[in-house]
């Protein structure tokens, strides 16, 4: 179900941030992460599966998340990802960077405030 006008292009860096943030609450598999992001953003952020899995593997290669295979609550085998310690640190860094960015953007767009 494509909501074309509501779709916002997600930059690669922001997808990483979203994934890391989502994993704070506990290990998830890929599908659950996408679903979570969609739900929490109230359907605004639709994660392209074409970007999700490359991003997950990239984050894993960088050592910020780790993975293992478990049985899902439905009884099927799935690959669960979770945050590592350095991932947690990276999350803090990314989040503050994001806050700086949005603050700067706001200053430019609404200088009067």
């Amino acid at each position, binding site marked *: 179900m*494509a909501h074309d006008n509501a779709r916002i292009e997600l930059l690669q860096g922001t997808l990483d941030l979203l994934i890391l943030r989502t994993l704070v609450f506990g290990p998830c*598999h*890929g*599908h*659950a992460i996408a*679903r979570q992001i969609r739900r929490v953003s109230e359907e605004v952020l639709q994660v*392209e*599966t*074409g970007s999700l*899995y*490359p991003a997950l*593997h*990239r984050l*894993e*290669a*960088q*050592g910020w998340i780790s993975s293992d*295979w478990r049985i*899902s609550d*439905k009884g*099927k*085998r*799935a*690959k669960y990802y979770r945050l590592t310690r350095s991932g947690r640190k990276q999350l803090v860094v990314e989040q503050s960077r994001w806050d700086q960015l949005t603050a700067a953007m706001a200053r430019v767009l609404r200088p009067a405030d």
Partner: protein
Amino acid sequence: MLHRLRARLRSLWNWHRQESELDQEIQFHLSEEADERVAAGLSPDEARRTAKKDFGNVHSIRARTRDVWIWPWLQDVGQDARFAARLLVKDRWLTLAAVTVLALGIGANTAVFTIVNSVFIRGLPFHEPDRILRLWTQTQDERGARRPPSELTYEHWAEARSLSGLAGHVGSSINVSDEDLAPERVQGSYVTANLFRVLGQVPMLGRDFAAEDDQPGAEPVAIIGHRVWQNRYGSDPAVLGRTLKANGQVVTIIGVMPPDMRFPDDADIWLPRAQLPPRTFPYSFEAIGRLADRVTLEQARVELESITQRLAQAFPETNANLASYVWPYYEWTVDGEEIGLLFLLLQGTVPFVLLIACANVANLLLARSAHRAHEIAVRVSLGASRGRVVRQLLVESVLLALIAGLAGLGVAVAGLRWAEAATQTMADMPHWMAFTMDGTVFAFVAAVCLATGIIFGLAPALHVSKTDVNEVLKEGDRSGTGGLRARRWTRVLIVSEIALTLVLLAGAGFMMRSFFTLYRMNLGVDTSPLLTMQLFLPVPKYREVGLRTELFRQFAERLAGIHEIEASTLTTRTPAGGGAWRRLMIDGRPRPIDEEPPLVLTVWVGDGYFETLGVPLLQGRAFTWGDGRPGQQSAIVNRQFVAMHFGNEEPIGRRIMVESDDFPPGTFESPWLTIVGVSPDVRQRQLGREDDGEDRGVVYVPYRTSSPRSGALILRTRGDPAAVTALVRDAMRNVEPDLPVFNIQTMDELLAQQRWPFRVFGTMFTTFALIALVLVAIGLYAVTAYSVTQRTQEIGLRVALGAQPGQIQWLVLGQAVRQLAIGLPIGLAGAFGVGQLLQGAPNGGLLLQASPSDPLTLVSIVAVLVGTAVLACLWPARCAARLDPMVALRHE
């Protein structure tokens, strides 16, 4: 950063597992998505279908994920390699031709590099081998013989400050046996206790000899070599303390040497000097020394010489007239000749063969590239960058080169086996000069293959990658615009092949010429029935001239009694063995004041010299028993001498004096010699040593005049000379049992040894030149044949318009002729350079009686090359001339 690297490397191993895991992950995602949609109300089939559709392109997801794992290019290279392998199998004949050509080039280079590696690079397995010296004494008389030092000399030398150590060794065959194993005969060496310390080599197991081991009455011990340890004791580390019998004496093993240690001559066991069985006749110990720290060779030589001179004065009976002779152990000289240069020359030449091979294969690939233009165009249109295309083509050529490299190793092994067989005849071949391929050689082969692949692959790759895609994809394209550029590349390659081949031919040609000159050198003597051997009479037993003369007389009697020996004689130097240069003065002629008196070669010969050689005197008589005694000093001169100094005058009865060049004129009262006979010219100067000067005549003086201690015995035999050897040894032993007689060989063998460098290197250079010639012929044939194919329509047109077969042939050959015309002058310039190089080689150069611009050699090599080229192009030319115009015009 590091994480990424590690993850990528790990992915290289877990490749397949990661791929399948990803697939599972995607499957799981799809099934979850389908479940969700079913829960939202869709039918299961609909849910699955839409889930899949919305998921996106699975393949591209997989590809992008893969890019995260490893370097993408590595994967591509693997793909390229697989494709290249399939292509090579498909184009079987091309692959075979290319591999053969390259294998010859790579193989030749590998063989030469192995030799150069073992001679120059690998070096000796000692610590700082360039500081190890060999020390001899040298007599200051006519013969200038070099002998190992006597005990007295050795003891004094050992105290020299410029040596950090002096050690001695003497080799011997040793029977090794013990209770368990069969006895075997190995090469061994009796050494002073400090030998290994001087060499800088520690035993691998156990301990080195200590000074106490070398005392008389000490407990007998031995150090064994690695080979013995492996073969007899199965590399058992508990071998220390076991005993074995060496030449009947029980010894305890105290150490094992590492594998490379076989000093000095393939020795497998070392025993202390004190264990030498006693004998009347002193052993001759080779002396080895090591330069002390910060001492130069020159300083050591000066100090050792001054010690030797002091000894000569203090002990005149034993040490008079002795000088020291000190040389680094590692001088690569054979019989005093600098063979090292020849090896380097070989190493410099053989890459040319490889370059020619590369040019040939590049041409082959260029020819084939026209057929691949279509495939390349498709790749480019699908998005491959030029670099990508070039990379793929390079992978193909490197793969080809690697296959050729493997084949080349086979070629190299065969070549090395020949080289080893050829060098067996070399008397002085050091033991550490084994032509084995070690790690360095294999690394070299790998590097050469890589470089070769890139060299011959680059031109075609660059050329093909430039194809204009549109042109090629259009139907009906014939050779394409690439044809013109390809032809230019091809021409350049052929021209360079021709030039390089000419240079190689020049090297071969010059060496062959020198070689023939050597062989044609007429000695003036029929050498086939002659046997030679060297003698050395030891001091102190034979200090007096009278004793020596008497010994020689007894010899002559003994030998005369042997039926197979027709005649025998003594001489200080055999024919073509050189001689002693002496200043000449002729009685009745004024002594030259300002200019140097003429020099002449002098040889001391026995009575039956000319009879033994089978050379009748031209005038006068041979030496008899009385000649050479005081009051009857005589000489025989040769024809050249008479021509130079007497012209038409009668030489018999004239008196001459020959003075040693080492001393100022007038210091030695040399006797006046009366000429009693004139001999024909028998070559006395050594073969191949042109720096000995022109032929200035030879003077023969009776041996008895001084009965030098060392000399040669020449025997004229009936029948096979070699068969007489045992008889001679027996006869000598009956007269003097302890006398060393060595270097027993036929005169022909002796001469062959002198010619050795020319024979071996001449063969090598000629082989390379022939390989190059074959390669050029193949290259020219292939290129001409291909161009005929390309120009088939044009030729058909010409024939249809009335061209004669001869004209067609000329048309085809014309291209080859043009390339020859450019390549030959370049090659000739190179040939001239090679000639200069050969002439400048030490020891009178390697160019005997020929100049670098020798017209005969240059003309013949040009003729050979042109002839080969024409022959190679002839067949395609004739085929072209016989083309049926109807068929040709329709050819695509």
